[in-house]
């Protein structure tokens, strides 16, 4: 595991993945200071799982691609270790076991109602019934459940974090409570998507 060069208590990371129908998945990782200005940006070249990978990884594919491969790699490339990394895609939380920086999920209205598995937010504790309805023999069931999440209010934003990350959640609220009202944690993801599009066009 690569480490960051320096830990910052005044920087926040934003990590998302953009799926392009033709090229595949692009990951983008933006580190902002508290004024909202960009400090670092990292993006991946496109990643496209082949058919064999799709079949063999099954429902674990998104967690693996978004979290372990893209998320973990991007966070490890950051020179600055932000206080927290925000993501708007649940599968990216699968990177958490591999990185020391806490990850939180930013929820917005669209996520609450989405049917897309990469966008639908658990928004709280995972419902056990969801899994009793699935096939008994699915070996990935335990993995699919992922970490149980707790939703919480952060100023004007609604976030979710793993239940196990209670200490990190408290630290986040304490450290940034003054700023929570002025932060729009959804907006930086729009910047990442625009930057990925810019990089994609430049590559062409």
């Amino acid at each position, binding site marked *: 595991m690569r480490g960051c060069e320096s830990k*910052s208590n005044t920087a926040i990371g934003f990590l998302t993945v953009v799926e392009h129908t033709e090229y595949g998945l692009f990951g983008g990782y933006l580190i902002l*200071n508290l004024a*909202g200005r960009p400090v670092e940006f990292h993006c*991946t070249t496109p990643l496209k799982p082949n058919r064999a990978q799709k079949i063999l990884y099954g429902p674990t594919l998104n967690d693996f691609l978004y979290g372990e491969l893209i998320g973990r790699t991007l966070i490890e490339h950051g*020179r600055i270790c932000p206080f927290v990394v925000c993501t708007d895609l649940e599968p990216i939380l699968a990177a958490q076991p591999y990185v020391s920086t806490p990850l939180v999920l930013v929820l917005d209205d669209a996520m609450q109602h989405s049917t897309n598995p990469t966008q639908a937010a658990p928004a709280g504790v995972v419902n056990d019934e969801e899994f009793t309805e699935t096939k008994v*023999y699915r*070996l990935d069931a335990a993995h699919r459940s992922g970490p149980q999440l707790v939703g919480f209010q952060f100023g004007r934003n609604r976030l979710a974090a793993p239940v196990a990350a209670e200490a990190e959640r408290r630290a986040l609220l304490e450290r940034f409570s003054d700023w929570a009202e002025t932060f729009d944690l959804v*907006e930086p993801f729009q910047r990442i998507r*625009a930057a990925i599009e810019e990089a994609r066009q*430049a590559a062409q």
Partner: protein
Amino acid sequence: MNTLRPISQPAAAGKPAVMGLEPVAPPQCFGGTVNIDLPKCLPVNFIFNAAAVGRVVSLRTKPPKVQVKSFSFAGSTAEAAVCPPAERSEPAAEKADTPASYTRLTPSRDVIKLGDRLEYVLQPPLELLLADSNLFFPCRPYAYQYAGVAFLFPRQAAILADEMGLGKTMQTLTAIRLLIRQQKIREALIVCPKPLVSNWLREAARWAPEITVMAVEGETAKRRWGWSLPDVPLRITNYESLLRDEQCLAARSFDLVVLDEAQRIKNPLSATNAAVCALRRRRSWALTGTPVENSPQDLVGIFGFLVPDLLSPEMTPTAMRAAIADYVLRRTKEQVLDDLPPKLIHDVWLELTPEQEESYRLAEEQGVLRLKSLGRQATIRHVFELILRLKQICNFDPLSGESAKLERLEADLEEIVASGRKAVVFSQWVGTLRHLRKRLAPFAPLEYHGRIPVREREAVLARFRDEPNYRVLLISYGAGGVGLNLQFAEYVFLFDRWWNPAVEAQAINRAHRIGAQGAVNVVRFITLNTIEERIDRILEEKQTLFETIFAGEGWAQGVGLDAAELFGLFQLALPEAA
């Protein structure tokens, strides 16, 4: 996977285990084994046999390699100095609100390097940037004004060509303010027509109150002192002073030079054009509501200042349009102001009174005869003299004082005044306005033109605006075409027409601007079978020309009031000498 079932149990957790899966209902005899790494349940490889051929096929799930591109931004550090909210001054921009859509900074086409482009793309949206910079705004800008600021901010060269009344001044000052606060520029210079210097000072105090602004004009010694002062973030001067101080400015350089009413440099051979092009600068912006007044060649002159060699007179209009696309932002009121009342234009076609018609025919016959008799000696000046003479007759018969336009105007004004509304009447001649004042005496008209002393003009406007007894303002294109706010007038009469639609639009926009309460009715008087009708045809073509370049419509070839067309108004060929 759903058609497979386990055929063995995994080994101890934490160690790679081998599990077997077999088809639940195999259509053929296939056997397969998936090796899975626990506890993550991720497949390592998959082995299966194709029974038909007795061959074993192995697939190894090698994870794809992720390549990362990284960018860091020198301008920002993780430890940004930001005041906590309690210590901030409260700007008028409502920073806590999330707008329906943010205005983003987008790099211009001439920013090539990906890292440079991303530096703009990854900046906070303008609404957040302005709110976070503790900037005071007297009122909340419109969304299109944010877009204008976002357009100017990243550009080294730009034309803001918004229609009059949309706030080019405010957008420019806000962009300058932001650039100064982000330390991207230190010294900016605004060059504008002399009468507008005070307006810029006033607007700067309103929209950029924390920035030190200096007007460099007046006597030579005062100007030299103004140029010599160090660290003045924003200077404002006029074109005439700039011409006089050309040598003095040769040694200076600016981070940004803004030309207001940039159509002043449309002639590439003019001294003004040469003077502004000689200014040493890093960024060049031009502001004009009328970037093309007569022909596409006007743009060549302006772009000589902005991006030398981008345009040439030989370029086709289509090529010109493509070349300037990334440098020009042009919006009309109809496009951006949903709540701006409509502008209703009525062309009123009038027949001359018999007396007028007789005078007109006589004057035209004599004029054409004279032009013909001059032969090769005839010049454009001779044509102009005849046109002006004929247009004056279209306004009033010089012998009898009869006027078809006046009859119609009187009828319209009676109705307007009776309904408690206000009207402005434009003419290019003070003489015509004076004549109108006498004939329209029952309506107590006010006058605003070159013969009204400057010190009295503000009072005239105040009376027209505030006093209900004054409902008609007679105004000349020259004195009142720019810089006036007459949005309380709902009727605009163009008693006679100007030479190009841009000047007429300036006049109309005195009333049709932000703050207008109701629809603005524009009445254009045109007399039938006269020079006015012929000129109207050319004006329509000019309007088509403008819309072609700035609205992407088809191109109309060969429009414009050139010498050949001026002679053509009288079915005369252009003499070689002309």
